[in-house]
């Protein structure tokens, strides 16, 4: 790892100012960034830890919306997000216990790993990503593998999840990396059924809109019987072929709907 200057501001304002310089990089829990820097795939000159900003911590529920601070760890979400049980289950199965004590929801969303769990939750639950400068709907946030709508130096300060009527996440675990080989998050929301798929597409997380329409007509797993998922554009690697992942999308969606 190349050396860098470490900073730990106590406020969002101070963090944003420190991140103005082009080779500064925000640090959440470091569970992706530190290994990436060890491989020299990233080499920021300044690392700005967000862990000292009290405002970016914790889980709150008010007026039908759960707000999770951007620097809240997966372990804290698993312990405090009872208002959305599917999110408790999701956060409690990210990586392993040590990773969950460090990794953060803001870090995961900002990284948008194509196999990460949180992007599927944010998209299916129609979350709003709150940053230091604006609010971004999840539908407008994710922009292809590892891509997001975030500008340079923009920080995710919180994520707002409208409470769903019901939700379920089905993760087919890749047991070595502990990421989703494929994962499907289904939510029954006030705007209808939303189905978000992670770990499958080369474009990263996406909504399976055909399944959503079918479920809006008939909210049962059998509504999905006639649908097929094309393997075109699906991730293919040593853990699973594109066709295998395409099949998993259908299977996991049915399981999630059945578990709602």
């Amino acid at each position, binding site marked *: *790892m*190349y*050396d*860098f*200057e*470490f900073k*730990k501001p106590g406020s969002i304002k101070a963090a944003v100012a420190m991140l103005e310089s082009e080779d500064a990089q925000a*640090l959440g829990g*470091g*569970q992706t960034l*530190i*290994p990436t*820097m*060890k491989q020299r795939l990233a080499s920021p000159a300044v*690392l700005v*830890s967000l*862990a000292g900003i009290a405002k970016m911590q914790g889980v709150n529920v008010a007026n039908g919306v759960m707000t999770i601070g951007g620097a809240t760890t997966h*372990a804290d979400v698993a312990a405090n997000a009872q208002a959305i049980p599917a999110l408790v289950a999701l956060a409690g199965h990210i*990586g*392993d*216990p*040590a*990773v969950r*004590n*460090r990794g953060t929801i803001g870090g995961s969303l900002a990284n948008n790993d194509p196999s990460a769990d949180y992007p599927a939750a944010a998209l299916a639950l129609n979350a709003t990503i709150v940053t230091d400068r604006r609010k971004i709907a999840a539908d407008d946030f994710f922009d292809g593998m590892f891509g997001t709508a975030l500008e340079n130096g923009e920080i995710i300060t919180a994520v707002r999840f409208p409470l769903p009527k019901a939700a379920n996440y089905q993760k087919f675990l890749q047991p070595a990396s*502990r990421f989703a080989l494929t994962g499907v998050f289904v939510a029954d929301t006030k705007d209808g059924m939303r189905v978000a798929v992670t770990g499958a597409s080369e474009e990263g997380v996406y909504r399976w809109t055909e399944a959503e329409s079918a479920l809006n007509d008939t909210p049962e797993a059998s509504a999905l019987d006639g649908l097929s998922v094309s393997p075109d554009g699906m991730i293919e690697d040593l853990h699973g072929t594109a066709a295998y992942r395409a099949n998993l999308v259908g299977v996991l969606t049915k399981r999630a709907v059945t578990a709602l």
Partner: protein
Amino acid sequence: MTKVSMTVNGKAVSGEVEGRTLLAEFLRNNLHLTGTHIGCDTSQCGACTVHVNGKMVKSCAILAQEADGAEVATIEGMANDDGSLGVIQAAFQEHHGLQCGFCTPGMVMAAADLLAKNTNPSEADIRSHLDGNICRCTGYHNIVKSIQAAASALS
């Protein structure tokens, strides 16, 4: 170089580190606490597991400066004051929970983290708590047995 100060196994310590100095490196190189092992350095094996403010973390995936001001616990703090093995360590010895011993510091720290929260863990609780701790020798069965034995010894 920047000065960091923290409490390690109840003792106040400090030292000069670079931005990139990992907590594992600070413990091993600055403090000579070499019980914390670096098995992979890619945050997969868990041999480097320590506790920071009462929570288990991989010390190869946290910067020393991130732990500035923290309470850190390492394997060296698991023995009794007279140097004899602590309860979890003794259970690993008794139940053959180690062979080469390389993963053991991490296993013991993961076990201590679990038992601090759950005094009567099921076998499934133990196994899932060890998701991030890899052992290439034992096949895990005796590690699970050791932790079960430690749980009953402690309760």
